[in-house]
């Protein structure tokens, strides 16, 4: 996994939230390598940029969701995936845990939570 880059891929289909996340990440002196709105874009971006961390929204535009994308990225790239979701429904949580999430964050996301989580995941 040493070939991964110190950057973060943001997967979020809502532009404003994606932008907000980018700003938050950048405030922490981290680099955002790309922002993807669909699962396919996310997988392509991950394979192109090989980010160390992916911030993954659960609900995505298109047929596939965040878990589909996360599984593919985990297998092909090996990035750590932090899920960011607005929902804490049991069905959603069960779906997330079919993958191997590094962490799960709930919207709205505070700077503190984001920073702490990213630091923890990088330390793994």
């Amino acid at each position, binding site marked *: 996994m040493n070939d991964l880059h110190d950057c973060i891929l943001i997967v979020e289909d809502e532009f404003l939230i994606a932008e*907000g996340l980018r700003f938050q990440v950048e405030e922490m002196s981290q680099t955002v390598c790309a922002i993807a709105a669909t699962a396919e874009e996310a997988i392509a971006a991950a394979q192109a940029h090989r980010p160390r961390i992916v911030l993954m929204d659960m609900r995505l535009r298109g047929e596939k969701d965040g878990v589909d994308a996360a599984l593919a990225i985990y297998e092909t790239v090996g990035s750590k995936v932090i899920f960011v979701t607005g929902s804490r429904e049991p069905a959603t949580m069960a779906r997330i845990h079919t993958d191997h999430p590094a962490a799960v964050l709930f919207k*709205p996301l505070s700077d503190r939570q984001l920073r702490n989580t990213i630091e923890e995941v990088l330390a793994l």
Partner: protein
Amino acid sequence: MSIWDWLLNPSGLTPHGFCLSWAPGLASLHAGSDVVIGLSYFSIPLAIAALVRRRPDLQYGWVAYLFVAFILACGTTHLLAILTLWVPAYGVEGLIKLVTAVLSVATAAILWPLLPRVAALPSAAQLEHLNLRLRDSEAEARLSNLELERRVAERTEQLERANAQLTKALAERSQAQQALARNEAEYRASFEAAAVGKIQTDPLTGRYIRVNRAFAQMLGYEPEELIGKDGWSFTWPDDRDDGREGFARLLSGEVSTYHREKRYLRRDGQPVWGRLSGSIVRDPDTNEPLLSVGVVEDIDERRKAQAALEETRRDLEAMVEARTTALAQRDLLLREVYHRVKNNLQVVDSLLVMQARQLADATAKAALLGLRSRVYALGLVHHQLMGSANLSTFDVAPFLQELSTNVVEGGADQDIALNVEAIPLEVGLDFAIPLGLLVTELVTNALKHAFPAGPGTIDVLLERGADGRIALIVADNGVGYAADDALGDGVAAGLGASIIKGLVSQMGGVMSVTANNGTRCEIRLASPVAS
């Protein structure tokens, strides 16, 4: 010659003494002997007559009288022989002799044929012997009598005993018969008058032998109309097969009783529900079925009520299902709404982040950051609601912990310790949102004003006072700032202060601030009304 002459002196004959030459010795000898003989001959018959008279039991007594007459006649001849010694009364003497001859001949003639019969008469010795024997046999007879009497007594006793037993047995039998009759009467009465239907059926043909009024009326008939009819024809057609199957098992002895809830066919063609309990009466020796007896309870109303109840229950179940589905849909919708609210808050947060980056002014930047923590409080309330089972209330303690931690860690440059203690309290949206905003403002204030230099501790406490009201306390051990315009009443206050004032008032609360070794802000609130 006269008769008297003939009798006393015929033809002048000489007396007999003359023949004796009147010799005195000879004449005396004759005369004396004849006197003695004659007297004896008169005495003997007298004795004989006396004897016969005394012994009337003597057989052939009349023969003795012949002897009496004959001896008297002989005696008379001897007396006449004396007379003729001196008087020639030969006529008289001859007549007497004639009489004597007749009597003698008669006696002799009778005596001979009588001889064997008289000889056959028992002698005295024989009689004595006979008597002895009689006495012996009498004794024997007495003995045997005694024995007989004893046996008679015994038999009598036996008989009496047997009689007593018989009487008793008869009495018992009579009682048993009475009891039987009473039982029969009672059975009949209970059969006829029972409120439940009772039937007796021939187990082989299935025909009614006896039915009571209750049963007949249940089917709309008179009892007489049903006697002899095939019982199965009064069972509702759809229930016959099952009934026959059950009855066959009863008849074969596989089961000893038979219970069925089944429909009978009423006279008007309508079904009527009955509960039949049946059994078979069998011959105790051969075990052959003799009679099938049944009790039929009219359960029509119960069954109909049951059916109605069942229908109601089905309706209710359908309603419950519909409600459950509606509720599930509502829950789904509610979760979706919460999700959307959170997503929108995230959008707002993103806008604030983006806007803050555009600002150069530090004060303006800080104001936007303050807005972000307020938005976070709103988001967190929805987040808690989504995780609760009823989607409408949640426990306040973890919420306060999460909320305070976020403010402290997001806003503190120094090393600030946070202590959150809250009673378990279920709160809804209406209570949680102002409470969350109040805590956000108060903790933010403490961070901003209490610790200009160096570390400290912030306590967030939620307690229940003795008056039942809820007390929210946010206290710090920093420098006092209560007189500062951050909270001071009547002082031109900032946004935070007016938010606090307004929310306390909205919640019907009272706030008191004390500055003693830091600042302690206590807000007393009415308990949240469980929604």
